[in-house]
């Protein structure tokens, strides 16, 4: 008896539901997603707003402005007046560009050497690359090696230890291996050597994957913070993330000396300067984000599917 009523209830419910969701569910979903997006977006708007709000407005709203009443570029002018932040920005750019080049060169060449079927030494080298994915050597040993190489306080310490990522090498390798052998064979018949084939045939065919991996590395270098904290004690060589940590997270006050000698009473409020530093470290990511999103999604899926 009870099963029967149950059954009846089920049929009645499903007949009203059909396959289009009901209005209340759609509204509920909309509200949840809107909430998620708000939680992500509002902080960004607040950060940007605080960086350009007027001094009075910042003080009045307790240090964080959700929407600026006026446009005031004083904090950006203060930052780009020379001084700590500007120098750190330069360091970060140098590390990101130089590092990405080193990483891409090393990774693509290694991946190419590993992608030619039956080449000499391929198996042990491949094992070395694969095994590196499984473990990380640990903080103290890493530190000792960097120290023994004399790289403490050198910008190279921010590039070389993380330059080659085994996972990226494998992704590049599987891409290179998917290039039809006939293309490479015909070049070989025409007398091209291995490097020539790599440079003028394989790389041009791999632009998309190079962009993905290059962006992977670049974002990694731009965002890296701990290695700098560990290896770089000379504040003149600090990258932006470390400056951000010192002056924004740890709330160390930026003196006029830190800002290229602007006179102290002309300084915009600390909160605005802090948020301006934050914005500056965000901008490069925001600029490449459209590419990142498109390619990373694809790249991550190929990685997952292939891997």
């Amino acid at each position, binding site marked *: 008896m009870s099963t029967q009523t149950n059954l009846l209830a089920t049929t009645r*419910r*499903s007949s009203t539901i059909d*396959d289009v*969701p009901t209005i209340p*569910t759609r509204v509920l979903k909309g509200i*949840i997603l809107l909430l*998620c997006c708000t*939680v*992500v977006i509002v902080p960004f708007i607040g950060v940007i707003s*605080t960086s350009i709000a007027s001094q009075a407005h910042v003080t009045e709203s*307790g*240090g964080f402005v959700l929407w600026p009443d006026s446009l005031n570029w004083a904090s950006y002018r203060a930052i780009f007046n020379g001084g700590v932040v500007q120098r750190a920005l330069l360091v970060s750019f140098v590390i990101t560009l130089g590092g990405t080049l080193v990483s891409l060169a*090393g990774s693509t*060449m*290694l991946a*190419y*050497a590993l992608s*030619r*079927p*039956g*080449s*000499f*030494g391929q198996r042990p080298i491949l094992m070395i*690359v*694969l095994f*590196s994915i499984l*473990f990380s*050597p*640990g*903080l*103290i*040993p890493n530190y*000792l090696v*960097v120290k*023994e190489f004399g790289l403490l306080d050198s910008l190279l310490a921010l590039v070389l*230890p*993380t330059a*080659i990522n*085994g*996972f990226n090498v*494998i992704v590049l390798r*599987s891409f290179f291996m998917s290039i039809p052998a006939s293309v490479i064979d015909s070049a070989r018949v025409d007398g091209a050597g291995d*490097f020539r084939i790599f440079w003028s045939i394989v790389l041009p065919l791999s632009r998309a994957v190079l962009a993905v991996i290059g962006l992977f590395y670049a974002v990694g270098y731009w*965002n890296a*913070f*701990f290695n700098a904290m*560990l290896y770089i004690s000379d504040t003149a060589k600090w990258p932006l*993330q470390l400056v*951000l*940590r010192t002056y*924004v*997270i740890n709330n160390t006050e930026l003196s006029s000396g830190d800002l290229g000698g602007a006179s102290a009473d002309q300084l915009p409020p600390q909160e605005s300067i802090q948020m301006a530093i934050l914005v500056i*470290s*965000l901008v490069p990511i925001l600029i490449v*984000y459209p590419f*990142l*999103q498109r390619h990373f999604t694809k790249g991550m*899926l190929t990685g997952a599917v*292939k*891997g």
Partner: protein
Amino acid sequence: MLIDQARATDSGPPGTPTAERSAPPAGGQQLSWWARARRDKVLLLMAIPGLALMLAFHYLPLLGNLIAFQEYLPFVPFGRSAWVGLDNFSVIFNGDAEFLNALKNTLLITLVQVIFVFPAPIALALLLNSLLSERIKRVVQSVLYLPHFLSWVIVIAIFQQILGGSGLINNTLRARGIDTIDFLGNPDSFIALLTSQVIWKDSGWGTILFLAALTQIDQGLYEAARVDGASRLRQLWHITVPGIRGLIILLLILRLGDSLTVGFEQIILQQNLVGRPASEVLDTYVYNNGVLAGQWGVSAAVGLVKGLFGVALVIGANKVAHIFGEAGVYQKA
């Protein structure tokens, strides 16, 4: 996964993939290894820079673990430090309070994150997947993926602006005359803070794999279920969830393989606000005691043991995942 795949492509049917390079010369004889090395010398030269960097900064440091057995002093040359056997490991064997606390925090954070962080992208993916409008879906995705690309420094700075003493929420409370809440410095809620940050940063990005798995589900199943009069909720439970169960199990196992590693950068950046007792995990223990406090040997010992357990867990997780993996999205693709 990756490793198995790379191995598989290598050891495929013998002869086929290797045919191009090692095709036997006319006599039917394999080239000698010297001849092959000479033939491939350009390839070897190309491999050297990357390989050297990897050996120098990924494998050479393994030797550095030797100081776990030494009374290491930074100003004494590496080889001259006194050997002390397993003395440094006594913090582990004898259960030093600070070490045990770090271990406890690490495991607790892993547990909480498996419960709260792990399901977030799944729920979000199901929600996104059920949207009828592709355009809204794409816009929402663009917004939610963004935090993944920000550094921890930026994420924590942003959280401070919202939750800090003079942040958005406390400003609002103050303006209304309500007591402010100490979100960032309260040791009791530190794990909740960490967890919410991880969810904010990565749950959008985490949907990608699940969304991909969801598109692999045979649409015919839904049609058949609809004809049978199954409600959308029942379709979700009987078709969608089983369709991604393999992937869920796989990712869960892989996550558990990483149990001993929890957000090092994230924690180190916030540690001075909450204090070490509440926030110390194994990785920060190694950093604080070794690099900062100068107990290099002890820290290296803890790091070494953690690393060994970590590798064992990851390999074990991979093995288990392999067993379950047969049903996952990986095999379908």
